């Protein structure tokens, strides 16, 4: 039973990581930029989700509104932060991205204060019993939402003309443009979808911890960076597998080796171990 419980906990955390890391890997696949500011958008999603939920009592409304606003925020970050410097060496947009992330953290601190905010609807923290396990509604909601959103994204990418155009642009933007695909629109779409997913991830993480604070993007961001390396940079399928694998390894690790390493250290020990065996990550190509 413990094994099953740990496995389920791993999947819950894995789906949370996937929501953050997919946006990051989409940006890397298309632009070859490590989009650190993604963590700031994730935190923005957490704040908006909490504010809207506390004001209206509707988590669904909060999720949809936050995803749309943060999606537009992601497009704005691309337009203002990356588009003017796309022809520069990769470290230039990376530094700009880190700058945007720090600036966003400071704006959150100035606007919402240095201390955390909490949800004022206790029913959001309610527990249910499922398959003999005591789970929080937010945990089940996170797994279901991740499956629906990531499944929808997969369907979009594989079965629609716009999804195929998107993948073609990731493969070869210059030639994709030769066939009438607007690479700029594809980039905006990329940032919109990736940032919207991060916003939903931010809401669920803040629900699980019942806390939204300015620095909440930090830890998930560096774990997401580790995940996209682990999954093979720019590879969406690899990112999903790496997210779930990391979640499961962390869940088991905290029980069996938790007295030697904390949760975050286990994640990075796993990353180092995998990269020693497969330096290219679990999957290659895009």
């Amino acid at each position, binding site marked *: 039973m413990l094994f099953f419980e740990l496995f389920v906990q791993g999947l819950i955390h894995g789906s949370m990581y996937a929501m953050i890391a997919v946006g990051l890997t989409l940006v890397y696949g298309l632009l070859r930029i490590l989009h650190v500011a993604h963590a700031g958008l994730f935190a923005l999603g957490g704040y908006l989700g909490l504010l809207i939920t506390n004001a209206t009592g509707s988590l669904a409304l909060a999720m949809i509104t936050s995803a749309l606003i943060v999606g537009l925020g992601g497009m704005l970050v691309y337009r203002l932060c990356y588009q003017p410097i796309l022809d520069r060496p990769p470290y230039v947009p990376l530094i700009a991205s880190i700058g945007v992330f720090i600036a966003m953290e400071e704006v959150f601190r100035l606007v919402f204060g240095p201390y955390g905010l909490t949800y004022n609807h206790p029913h959001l923290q309610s527990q249910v019993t499922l398959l003999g396990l005591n789970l929080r509604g937010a945990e089940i909601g996170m797994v279901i939402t991740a499956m629906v959103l990531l499944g929808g994204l997969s369907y979009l990418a594989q079965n629609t*003309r716009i999804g*195929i*155009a998107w*993948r*073609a642009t990731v*493969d*070869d933007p*210059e*030639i*994709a*443009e*030769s*066939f*009438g*695909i*607007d690479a700029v629109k594809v980039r905006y779409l990329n940032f919109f979808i990736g940032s919207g997913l991060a916003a939903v991830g931010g809401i669920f993480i803040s629900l699980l911890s019942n806390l939204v604070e300015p620095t909440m993007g930090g830890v998930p961001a560096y774990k997401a960076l580790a995940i996209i390396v682990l999954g093979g940079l720019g590879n969406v399928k690899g990112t999903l597998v790496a997210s779930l694998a990391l979640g499961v390894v962390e869940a088991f690790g905290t029980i069996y080796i938790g007295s030697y390493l904390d949760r975050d250290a286990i994640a990075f020990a796993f990353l180092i171990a995998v990269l020693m065996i497969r330096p290219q990550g679990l999957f290659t*190509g*895009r």
Partner: protein
Amino acid sequence: MLRLETLSCGYGDMRAVHGLDLELVEGGTTALLGANGAGKSSTIMSVAGHVQVHEGKVLYRGEDITRATPMARVKKGIAVVPEGRRLFSSLTVRENLVVGGYSLPKPKSDAGIDRVMTLFPRLKERLDQRAGSLSGGEQQMLSIGRALMSEPALLMVDELSLGLMPKMIDACYQAVAELKRGGLTILLVEQSTHRALEVADQVCVLESGRSVWKGSAHEARNDTEIIDALLGLQAGPKA
């Protein structure tokens, strides 16, 4: 149909083509010949909108498209089969064709896939296979098919025979000849002079980015010394 007026183009400050004048007649096939680095591919890619034009004009059906985006050019009817195929290797054959017809409404794009299958029946059984896993010849067929998906009026083909087995070269040139018979205007860039002269009506020879000879393919075929002298290649029955 297409007129290049004193076209100079290149990459950054480097000029690959200097003051090229060239006119393509509607329905005709023009071969752009020259050794490696002569500026052939740069010329094609500047017409497609991917290489910066420093001076001169690109006129298409009387309209100045020198500053038009690659997207606008494909919508006007210009398609390119780039050097090295440059297929979307992680996409399937069908998906590559869908991308080729992206500028058209879906029903037209679907009809285009059927037309490409008629031209290259070999691709039919590979529709759901990844483009990167095809043989070189099949990839070239797919690259031509992808370009045809946008229903172009002008097809530019860069190095059709490069790296292909003779049998595959024959198949690709047969397809080009069929397209020519169908009235498509073709600009063919080739290092394999002999093969290009088989299908071309007009010839332009480039050397170090400059046009050094222009004339009919008939003249070039009958006076192979021209080719020898200008390209340093041996004209003969071999490709």
